[in-house]
């Protein structure tokens, strides 16, 4: 119904980024309003205000590959207290960095979820991180507003995640094993650890970075330059250097994408921005940076890693060849993206009959049900059976139907009957969760609720999900309104 007097509903959203090097927390207020422009009512986030920017702290580690879960939970609690926040409505936790730490991500996510209550939790793969960083930095907005093609290059401790945006949204993502912490240094400059990809890169350059030795500054500069070259090579497009392909996580773009602007974010990105600010290299500075996490040290060993040298090398290379710009967020780009961009909304005529939020439901796409009515039963029974086998260990799954066929009474009744039958063999505490692209969740939910007994029925609509996506479904907004939904791609991916 068209709201006449309605104030925007406010959601408190928390973003938590547990990175290779730093852990950050932000709290934001999202204004949720009717954003429909004709057609069915639709909720969307109309304003995002960051109300608390937490301190940037070292990520507490038991050893280089294991996060200290209790200590991270302690940081989150402390930041929420500092922000004066008691009830969290939504948000996301992103555990970034080398894949070995993904094993840690799940217990950490659950731990945080327990202490924050109504909290939609997500972890991410590098592609999602790249996108969140670009949304948090302002690259996505710049691309949309100016109709430009903008790359956001998020250079952190463990990885470099690049997202390319155009006016329509995400155009491509690319990720590399390039980061400041891939070479760790002691106080006196002793190498304490070098990651394998960097070791290979160094050898290809004829350099040797042996642990427990003190290399020349020049040798480290050469390694940093080699890493910077790989980033520039990946951004420039094919043909790629052999070593760039070696550092790539996933695939690189098949063709070159002409860029109107390139922004840097992340911890190393911030050093680069600071370097450019100091040298006045960037003339195109639309908005002054609003995040100021304190002065940048000009000691190249200040962070006990290769970060400052990598930033300097990147600045040198990028300023020569790319249209570098400065945007509003740098080191906090990912956490801002996580806190303000991960919540989506279902349509607001839906059917939710469950006791609380549902978390980590794997999506099981059934695709288009373009079959005859008589075949619906067989198609859905086998889909539900397969879904159950594949996700037996999990709390349930969400059947995703991209096309239910015609939106007619007969069709929906037949679909509800076939779905209810397909679930009959399954334990009754397993919720029946169905996600449709078309606006038909309420009628489907009504048809299902009549046919199943003692089983929770959740039907939400106007969402598209894919294989490998996991869903967190919050509790409904207003009376029977839309639900906040976080769709996590590559969650807990190892």
């Amino acid at each position, binding site marked *: *119904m068209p709201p006449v007097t309605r104030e925007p509903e406010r959601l408190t959203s928390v973003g938590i980024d547990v990175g290779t090097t730093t852990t950050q927390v932000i709290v934001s207020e999202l204004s949720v309003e009717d954003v429909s422009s*004709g*057609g069915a009512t639709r909720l969307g986030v109309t304003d995002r205000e960051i109300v608390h920017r937490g301190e940037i702290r070292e990520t507490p580690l038991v050893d280089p590959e294991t996060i200290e879960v209790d200590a991270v939970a302690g940081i989150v609690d402390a930041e929420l207290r500092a922000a004066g926040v008691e009830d969290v409505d939504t948000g996301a936790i992103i555990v970034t960095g080398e894949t070995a730490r993904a094993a840690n991500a799940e217990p950490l996510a659950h731990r945080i979820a327990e202490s924050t209550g109504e909290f939609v939790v997500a972890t991410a793969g590098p592609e999602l991180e790249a996108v969140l960083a670009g949304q948090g930095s302002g690259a996505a907005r710049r691309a949309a507003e100016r109709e430009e093609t903008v790359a956001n290059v998020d250079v952190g401790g463990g990885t470099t995640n690049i997202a390319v945006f155009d006016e329509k949204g995400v155009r491509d993502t690319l990720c590399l094993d390039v980061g400041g912490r891939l070479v760790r240094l002691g106080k006196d400059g002793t190498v304490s650890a070098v990651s394998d990809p960097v070791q290979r890169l160094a050898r290809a350059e004829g350099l040797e970075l042996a642990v427990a030795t003190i290399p020349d500054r020049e040798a480290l500069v050469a390694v940093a330059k080699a890493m910077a070259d790989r980033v520039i090579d990946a951004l420039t497009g094919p043909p790629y250097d052999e070593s760039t392909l070696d550092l790539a996580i996933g695939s690189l773009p098949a063709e070159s994408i002409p860029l109107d602007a390139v922004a840097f974010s992340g911890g190393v990105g911030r050093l680069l921005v600071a370097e450019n600010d100091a040298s006045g290299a960037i003339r195109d500075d639309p908005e002054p940076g609003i995040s100021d996490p304190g002065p940048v040290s000009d000691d190249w060993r200040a962070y006990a890693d290769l970060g400052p040298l990598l930033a300097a090398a990147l600045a040198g290379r990028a300023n020569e060849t790319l249209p570098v710009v400065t945007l509003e967020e740098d080191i906090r780009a990912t956490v801002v993206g996580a806190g303000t961009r991960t919540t989506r909304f279902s349509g607001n005529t839906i059917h939710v009959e469950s006791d609380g939020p549902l978390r980590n439901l794997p999506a099981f796409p059934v695709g288009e049900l373009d079959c005859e009515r008589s075949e619906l039963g067989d198609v859905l029974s086998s889909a539900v059976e397969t879904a159950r086998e594949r996700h037996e260990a999990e709390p349930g799954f969400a059947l995703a139907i991209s096309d239910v066929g015609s939106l*007619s009474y007969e069709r929906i009744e037949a679909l509800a009957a076939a779905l209810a039958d397909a679930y009959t063999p399954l334990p009754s505490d397993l919720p029946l969760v169905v996600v449709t692209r*078309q606006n038909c969740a309420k009628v489907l939910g009504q048809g299902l609720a009549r046919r199943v007994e003692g089983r929770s029925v959740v039907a939400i609509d106007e969402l598209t999900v894919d294989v490998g996506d996991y869903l967190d479904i919050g509790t409904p907004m207003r009376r029977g309104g839309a639900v906040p939904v976080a769709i996590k791609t590559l969650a807990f991916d190892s």
Partner: protein
Amino acid sequence: MASETNDTDGEQSSRDRSTARPIDNPIDREALERITARNPSRLGVGRSGPRPRTETLLQFRSDHGLARDAVLTHVDEAVVDELGLMKIQSGVADKDEYLARPDLGRDISEETTARLREECTTSPQVQIVVSDGLSSTAVETNVPELLPVLLDGLADRGLDVGTPVFVEYGRVDVMDAIGEELDADCCVNLIGERPGLASAESLSAYMVYGPERGTPTSKKSVISNIHDGGLPPIEAGAQIADLVEEMCERECSGLELREDDREFQEAA
């Protein structure tokens, strides 16, 4: 959220105009496509000198013809029979009088009242009324899908439903008269919206708790823009059932039902 007659939100639809030939040689074709895709209005249709193109003009006249037809045709008897609706007529004699005399379209004659009392269940919790309103096309297109979902939904909620009635030449408020005469707790009127040039088949559902003649518009709830390009009719059926249940529980409708509106009123 409610209005005197059903001629508020004329039309919002997404009729496909992609077949229309766009502006010749636009400077930025992609930007033009983005703009036209966002809005069903006649944007970027080009021109011939200072006039619209023949194609544009014909499309406009064709859409206008559809809109006029929606107003001036009658709902097919076969549709009314198939839906099992009891057919009555408002106080209006014909289409011309219907358009000229909204007041007559809101009431029913004494004979009709007598017939209703004789043939319908009296004192139901929910009385369903279907009215042609300003679009017979809207009724024929949407009600066959919407009504069975609504009846199922009301039955699921344990609400007892009276004999559904079809009113020819009905206005929104005809449900007040019918509900009052049949002593219904609440009334739903599924009525054709004033057609526009983008959609002639949009339907609205008006609802009132405690219907009686002269009930102010502020006490009515509405779900509008029901058609394939807006809120699909089956989904609307389930939504109306939800709202009716809430009306029956809270014994009110319209602005009184909306907490935020109530707060607003109290503050004013």
